[in-house]
């Protein structure tokens, strides 16, 4: 058998993500507690998240947001031909990703999952190598469009453009995980539009039959490019579809990073204890057009977008952290400055990196000797 036959989709060292899943929360104890914060605090206690975790989650959300803004800027300047915005999906992405173990669990994100792959271990530099389609792009060496994530090292399974095709892959990988009795969970993310594809149905059905250790995360932003949910399906909740596959479907507020984390944590535990899959639906929105090629003014009002901005998941989590005494305006300001510097450096470094060698275009159709 060829040595390139994968022994496992992921061969990177363990650690990161919610490696601290079991840590106790210490920092929070000293925070001021009023009625509403007390509720939040006790929620957090139940989740077993430390203050460090919360700050780290928050930082990932900020990082995703600032990468998004920088990418859009690069696009407007003509340096990035194509970008796919994440803004407003940061909470559900970081929240669900946080319940996974970096370097141990297996990730099948879709193109909008910038914050998922950051938690999984990609860096801002990696992301911009992809955006500028450089030789060093860890995802595809500049072959694929940006945001078609993949990295064997990080256990991020290579993705494509056709929507929904990764769903049966997630089921198959989960089958292999179970077959090999590995301690790993598989998760795949997708939009509500993806749930209309036959592949989605077939993948969930297989996972249900074999009670596989997989979590299906729907980021329902209510639009598939221009098509509103009402023309995508006749149900209010994507989660209702789980009833057809014999496992639970859960609706969460996808703009609430902790609610997203909580739902995912339960789903991961279910998966690891052999109880089978979960479908999680995170209700959210997308602040930006579908991609840099889209013009969203043709299909939604500016008022609708403005209104959604009042529920910005990043503002909300920042406010939460302030209430909990983990953040204040000054620290948020300095965090943003620090992350912005990191992003700017990543942009500059990636831009300066070498382009792919044209002669490589013929390589890797099949295994090479």
């Amino acid at each position: 058998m060829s040595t390139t036959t994968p022994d496992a989709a992921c061969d990177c060292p363990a650690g990161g993500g919610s490696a601290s899943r079991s840590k106790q929360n210490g920092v929070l104890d000293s925070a001021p507690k009023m009625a509403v914060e007390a509720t939040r605090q006790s929620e957090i206690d139940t989740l077993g998240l430390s203050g460090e975790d919360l700050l780290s989650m928050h930082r990932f959300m900020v990082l995703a947001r600032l990468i998004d803004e920088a990418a859009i800027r690069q696009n407007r300047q003509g340096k990035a031909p194509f970008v796919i915005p994440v803004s407003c999906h940061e909470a559900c992405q970081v929240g669900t990703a946080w319940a996974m173990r970096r370097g141990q669990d297996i990730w099948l994100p879709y193109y909008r999952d910038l914050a998922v792959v950051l938690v999984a271990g990609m860096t801002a530099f990696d992301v911009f190598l992809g955006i500028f389609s450089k030789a060093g792009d860890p995802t595809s060496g500049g072959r694929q469009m940006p945001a078609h994530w993949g990295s064997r090292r990080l256990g991020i399974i290579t993705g494509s453009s056709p929507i929904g095709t990764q769903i049966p892959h997630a089921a198959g990988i989960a089958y292999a995980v179970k077959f090999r009795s590995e301690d790993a969970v598989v998760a795949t993310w997708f939009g509500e539009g993806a749930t209309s594809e036959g592949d989605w149905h077939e993948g969930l059905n297989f996972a249900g039959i074999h009670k596989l250790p997989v979590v299906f995360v729907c980021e329902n932003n209510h639009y598939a490019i221009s098509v509103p949910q009402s023309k995508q399906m006749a149900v209010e909740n994507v989660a209702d579809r789980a009833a057809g596959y014999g496992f639970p479907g859960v609706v969460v507020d996808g703009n609430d990073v902790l609610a997203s984390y909580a739902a995912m944590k339960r789903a991961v535990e279910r998966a690891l204890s052999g109880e089978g899959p979960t479908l999680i639906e995170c209700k959210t929105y997308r602040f930006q057009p579908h991609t840099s090629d889209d013009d969203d003014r043709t299909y939604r009002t500016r008022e609708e977008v403005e209104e959604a901005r009042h529920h910005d998941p990043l503002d909300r989590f920042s406010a939460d952290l302030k209430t909990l005494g983990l953040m204040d305006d000054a620290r948020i300001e300095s965090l943003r400055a620090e992350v912005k510097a990191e992003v700017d450096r990543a942009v500059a470094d990636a831009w300066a990196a070498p382009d792919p060698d044209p002669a490589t275009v013929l390589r890797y159709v099949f295994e090479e000797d």
Partner: protein
Amino acid sequence: MAQKNVVTAIHDALHEEMAADDRIVVLGEDVGVRGGVFRITQGFMEEFGPARVIDTPLAEAGIVGVAIGMALHGLLPIAEIEFADFIHPAFDQIVSEAARIRYRSNNDFNVPLVIRAPWGGGIHGALYHSQSIEAFYGHVPGLKVVVPSTPSDAVGMLRTAIRDPDPVLFLEHKKTYRAITGDVLDEPYTVPIGVADVKREGEDLTVVAYGFMMHTCLETATRLQEDHGISVEVVDARSISPLDKQTILSSVRKTGKAMVVYEDNRTYGAGAEIVATIAEEAMFDLDGPIVRIGGPDIPAMPFATSLEHFYLEPEPDQLYRRMLDLARF
């Protein structure tokens, strides 16, 4: 007569057809309020309403399958596949259903369906927004496949496709959309399916091409004329299935030299059939080898500019040099 680019030409023709026949419905992803990602159906939703301009769920087998049902019951559906690369989930509905229904029912049923899909590369679309798909579908008896590459052909062939009582896959090369403009007659006209078109007459060499490559060949032919006085005949195949053997063979018999050029992966591509046809039927009329130029056999065009460029032109000016070589053979 008006000058239009390909997008506008198709938009206007489709609009006219819909205004004239209310059995026509368009369906697909984002064809409604968004007017299609390439703006082919811009304004249709407002004018014809949501019952005739249907934003479908994200499900290509469903789009084609539902359209087949509509076609079986008195409507004339025009299904749009957002990018040709995404037609593959509908392969079974097209091959096993649309294309076989007349035959399998012994002529009792038929499927007047048009499937439109933007294809082709060179627009920075990477692996999944650049594909050529004509070879897969050209091989399906019961299905017609057309690849117009000028505004005028697009309009005339679209009209024919809509009037056809059988399924037609109507492929629009994305790079022609805004790059190619040309005259379009004001009065309604049709261009038959299954008839190739000599886009440039010549004596020394026949080049058969289609899609955006046809335009590249035309340009190259002009340069060869200017630089070397070589007269290249460019045949636009236009229709992949049925293939117009007659026009191709007459041209080859006249010039005695044949080259076939296509953008798709070379091996088992549509050009193989064209070369084989020439070999079988005109071999004894040839004064030189048959030359075939297809894309490299890699799983599609990469994204990075340098890589995409290599796919389309692996050696600098390869078309020019190979036409010159063949003419001089």
